[in-house]
C-alpha cells in the first residue's frame, strides 16, 4: 500500500480489447507498470504492438473497446470513471503529445485557440490570461508566438510538433505521454525535440511515458524501459541494463535493427511477421519468430517473471538462453621438450541467436579454443557446457539441433572421393536419422539453403571436381543438415577469394537470421567481424583480453592490445 501511494501512476493488469472488428482484437494484454513522480518510462516495440493503444487507454480514449484492469492515478482508479469525471483528469493531470500528423490539429481553428482552450475549461482563466499563458508556453517550446494566429496547415512539420508539445504542457500536467515524437522528423529537428523534452522536464518536473519504435531516442530519455510485443510486455527493466544486455530475444532483435547502435554491422531485422490480428494465441506470441523456441513455448503464454534485480522477462526459457558456456579452458601443446600454452584459462559464453566473433592475431589460440569447444580437441583443464550440460563424448555434436563446427580448410573437410549428396547427408547416415528418402530430401534442402544446385548431375559429382567455394558450401550444408542451434565457424572464408568470401559470409549470416542459430565466428579479419557480430571476444596469446557488445568494443576498445589490433586493422580505412 505504501509503495502504491508513492507512485504517480500504477497500471495493474490492464487489458484492452477492440470489439469493433470480428473477431475482437486484444490490443493490450495484461500490462502492469508503475511510474513515480518525475520518472521517465519508455515503451518500445514494432508498429502495431499496442503501444499507442496503451497510451490511449491511460488517457481513457478507447472507442469501441473494453478495458479491463486498473489504472490508478494518485490512487484513483480511472477505469470505469464516467466521462464527465474523467474529463477533469485529462490534460490537467495527464496530457499527451500525439504522434505528429497533418490531421492531428483541427484545420479550421487557430493555433492559439487549440493550445489555449484547455485553460478555459480546466483552469477557468480569462481570455487575457489565456493569451499570456499561450505566448509563454509557445516561447518555452521554442516557437515564435507570432505563429499563434496561424492555422495548422500553415505550419511545417517541426513547428506542428512544437505546437503539439505546447498544447500538451499548457496546463502543466503531472504526467506527459509522448507518442512517437520523432516520426517524420529530420535529424536536426529530432535533436531539438530531444533537448526540449529534456530541458522542459527539468523545469516542470513532470513524469513522462515515452512511446516510440525509435529505440535510440527512447533510451536516451528514459530510466525504465518496457518492450511490448503483441500487446504484451515481454521485457521490463532499467533502460541502461536492457540496452547493455537484452534478456528477451525480441528486445535484442529490436536493438539489432537500430542503425544508431551498430554503426558498422549489417542491419538484420527480426525475421518473420507479428501474428495476424485477432488470431487466438495460445502460446508465447513470439515463438514463431524466436530463435530458441521449443515445443513447450506453444502451449501457454509466458508471464513476466523476475530474472534479475529490477528485470522481468516474459519467456518460458527465462530470457535469452545460454547455449554454450566454457569455463577456464586451458590447453598446452608439447613441441618436443617445450610446452606451448595455446589457451590460458579462457571463459566464453554464447547465447541463443547471437553471432559472437572471436578475433585475434594468427596464433593467438582462437582455433584451438574453437576445436576444444566443439570437442575436436580435449581440454587440459576447464569444461564446456552446451545448454547447461557438460560436453563429453561428442553428445552435443551427434544430435539433431546440437552444435556443429565448420572448418577452415574446405579441401580437407570434405573427402575428395565422395559424391556431394553422400557428403552432405553423412551426419544423418551416421545418426541413422529416419529413412534414406528423407535423408536425401534433407540434403537437397540443405544444399538449396547454401545456394548450390540440386540437379542429379551435381548431386553425383565428386568433391574433387568442385571449386574451393563450392566445397566450403558443401561443408556448410553438411553442418546445417542437423539443424544445429550453434554453429562454430572457424576461419571459414580465409582460403577463399574476396568475392567468394563475401558471398559465403552473407549467406551464412542470412541463414543465421532465418534459422536463428547462434554462431561463433572465428576470424582474424576484423572488418568481417565488425560486419556480422553482435558480440566480440578479443584473444591475445591464449587469453581473452576483452569482451563485450560489438557496438561498444569497436567504438571504444579498452585493452591495450585491442586498441593496437584495431589501429593496425582499420588504419587504411581511417
Amino acid at each position: 500500500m505504501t509503495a502504491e501511494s508513492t507512485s504517480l501512476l500504477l497500471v495493474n493488469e490492464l487489458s484492452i480489447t477492440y470489439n469493433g472488428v470480428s473477431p475482437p482484437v486484444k490490443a493490450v494484454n495484461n500490462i502492469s507498470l508503475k511510474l513515480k513522480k518525475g520518472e521517465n518510462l519508455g515503451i518500445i516495440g514494432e508498429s502495431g504492438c499496442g503501444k499507442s493503444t496503451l497510451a490511449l487507454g491511460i488517457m481513457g480514449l478507447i472507442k469501441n473497446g473494453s478495458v479491463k484492469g486498473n489504472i490508478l492515478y494518485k490512487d484513483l482508479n480511472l477505469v470505469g470513471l464516467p466521462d464527465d469525471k474523467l474529463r477533469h483528469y485529462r490534460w490537467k493531470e495527464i496530457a499527451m503529445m500525439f504522434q505528429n500528423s497533418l490531421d492531428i490539429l483541427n484545420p479550421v481553428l487557430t493555433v492559439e485557440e487549440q493550445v489555449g482552450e484547455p485553460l478555459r475549461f480546466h483552469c477557468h482563466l480569462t481570455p487575457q490570461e489565456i493569451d499570456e499563458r499561450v505566448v509563454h508556453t509557445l516561447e518555452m517550446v521554442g516557437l515564435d508566438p507570432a505563429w499563434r494566429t496561424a492555422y495548422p496547415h500553415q505550419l511545417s512539420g517541426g513547428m506542428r510538433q512544437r505546437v503539439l508539445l505546447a498544447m500538451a504542457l499548457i496546463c502543466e500536467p503531472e504526467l506527459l505521454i509522448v507518442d512517437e515524437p520523432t516520426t517524420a522528423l529530420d535529424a536536426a529537428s529530432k535533436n531539438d525535440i530531444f533537448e526540449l523534452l529534456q530541458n522542459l522536464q527539468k523545469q516542470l518536473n513532470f513524469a513522462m511515458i515515452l512511446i516510440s519504435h525509435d529505440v535510440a531516442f527512447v533510451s536516451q530519455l528514459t530510466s525504465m524501459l518496457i518492450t511490448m510485443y503483441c500487446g504484451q510486455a515481454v521485457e521490463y527493466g532499467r533502460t541502461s541494463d536492457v540496452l547493455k544486455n537484452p534478456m528477451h530475444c525480441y528486445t535484442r532483435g529490436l536493438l539489432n535493427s537500430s542503425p544508431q547502435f551498430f554503426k558498422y554491422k549489417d542491419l538484420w531485422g527480426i525475421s518473420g511477421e507479428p501474428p495476424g490480428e485477432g488470431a487466438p494465441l495460445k502460446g508465447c506470441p513470439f515463438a514463431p519468430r524466436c530463435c530458441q523456441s521449443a515445443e513447450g513455448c506453444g502451449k501457454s503464454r509466458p508471464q513476466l517473471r523476475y530474472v534479475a534485480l529490477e528485470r522481468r522477462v516474459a519467456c518460458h526459457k527465462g530470457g535469452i538462453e545460454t547455449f554454450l558456456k566454457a569455463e577456464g579452458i586451458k590447453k598446452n601443446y608439447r613441441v618436443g621438450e617445450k610446452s606451448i600454452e595455446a589457451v590460458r584459462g579462457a571463459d566464453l559464453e554464447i547465447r541463443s541467436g547471437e553471432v559472437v566473433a572471436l578475433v585475434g592475431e594468427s596464433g593467438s589460440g582462437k582455433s584451438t579454443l574453437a576445436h576444444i569447444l566443439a570437442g575436436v580437441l580435449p581440454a587440459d583443464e576447464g569444461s564446456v557446457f552446451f545448454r547447461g550440460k557438460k560436453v563429453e563424448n561428442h553428445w552435443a555434436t551427434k544430435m539433431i539441433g546440437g552444435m556443429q563446427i565448420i572448418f577452415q580448410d574446405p579441401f580437407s573437410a570434405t573427402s575428395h572421393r565422395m559424391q556431394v549428396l553422400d557428403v552432405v547427408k553423412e551426419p544423418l547416415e551416421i545418426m541413422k536419422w529416419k529413412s534414406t528418402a528423407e535423408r536425401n530430401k534433407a540434403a537437397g534442402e540443405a544444399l538449396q539453403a547454401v545456394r548450390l544446385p540440386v540437379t542429379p548431375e551435381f548431386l553425383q559429382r565428386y568433391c574433387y571436381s568442385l571449386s574451393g567455394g563450392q566445397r566450403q558450401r558443401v561443408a556448410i550444408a553438411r553442418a546445417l543438415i542437423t539443424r544445429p542451434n550453434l554453429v562454430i565457424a572457424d576461419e571459414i572464408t580465409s582460403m577463399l577469394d574476396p568475392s567468394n568470401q563475401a558471398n559465403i559470409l552473407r549467406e551464412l549470416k542470412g541463414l543465421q537470421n532465418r534459422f536463428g542459430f547462434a554462431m561463433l565466428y572465428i576470424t582474424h579479419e576484423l572488418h568481417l567481424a565488425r560486419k556480422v557480430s553482435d558480440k566480440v571476444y578479443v584473444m591475445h596469446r591464449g587469453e581473452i583480453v576483452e569482451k563485450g557488445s560489438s557496438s561498444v568494443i569497436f567504438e571504444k576498445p579498452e585493452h591495450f592490445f585491442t586498441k593496437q589490433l584495431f589501429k593496425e586493422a582499420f588504419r587504411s580505412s581511417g
Partner: protein
Amino acid sequence: MRQKTRMRLIEYAITIWVVITLNFLLPRLIPGDPFLVLTSQSAEDEEIVLSEEQREFLFHYYGLDQPVYKQYFIYLGELFRGNMGFSVYYKQPVSHIVMHRLPWTVFMVLSSVILSTLIGTILGCFSAWRREKWVDKFLFLFMIFFSEIPSFLLGLILLFVFAAGLGLFPLAGAVTHFADFQSGWEKAWDVLHHAFLPIAALTISHLGGTYLLGRNSMTTVLEKDYLRTAWAKGLPKKRVIFRHALKNALLPIVTRVFLSLGSLVGGAILVENVFSYPGLGTLMRESVRVQDYPVIQGIFLVVTVCVLLANFLADVVYRKIDPRVGS
C-alpha cells in the same frame, strides 16, 4: 487570395457571356424558319394560331433581316439596359413579367434550401452520432428512398392526397384571390398555407442529399485524429461537438447548399406547375404553350444569373469559413 477571387469573377463573367450568347444564337441556329416549324406540331393546336402578322412581328423583332454581328450588338446593348424583349402573348416587356413572378420562385426555392439544409444537417449529424444504431438505420433507409423521388412526382402525390383528397391545403395558387385580409398576419398565414405543399415537396426531395452528405461528413470528421485530440484535452462534450466537429463537418454542406441551387431551380419549375404556383415555372409553361420565346429566354437568363450569383456567394462564404482555401 484577392487574385483568386478575381480569377473566379472572370470565370463567372465568361459563363454569363456564354449563356447570353447561347440565348442570342439559339433562335438563329434553328435550321429553316423556326417560327414555321414550331407553329404546327404542338399538342394544343387550337390555342396557338401564329398569324402571319405575328410571324412578321417576330421576324422583325429578332432583327433577322440584319447581319448577325449587328443583331448581336443590338441584343447585347438592349440587354445591358435591362431590356429583355417584349412578350407577344402578354403584351408586356419581358423584364416586367419576369420580375413580377420572380419573388414567388425565390421565396419557394430559398425556403426549401434553408429548410432542407437545416433539417438535413441536423438529422445527418444525429445519424452519424448514432451510427449503426436503429435510429440511424431507419433514417438512412427513409432518406435514400425519398431522395430518389423527383420533386414534382412527390408534389403530385402530396397535392392529390393532402389537397384534393383530405382538403387540408388549397389546390392551387399562392394567395386566396379576392380575399379580404383583416391583418398582415392573416395574409402571411394565407401565403404560408398556399406555399406549404410546394415547399414541402421541394424540401423533402432535397432533404435526402443534404442528410446523406451531413451524415457522411460528420462520420468522417468523428473519426479524424483531431477529434481524438479534442477529446483527450478533456473539453466538455458540447465544445467538442459544436466547435471542433461541426465546424469541419459543415464545410462540404455549405458548398453543396449553393451548388445544388441549380438542380433545385429545375425542380421548382416543375413543382410550381404541379401546384399552379405563380412563379417563373408556371410562367415558363404558359410561354412554352403559347410559344412566347422572348419570355422563355428571359426566364432562362434571369434564373441562370441568379444561380451563378449563388455560386459566387458560395465561393466567398467557403473562403470565409475554411482557412485552408486561398492561402
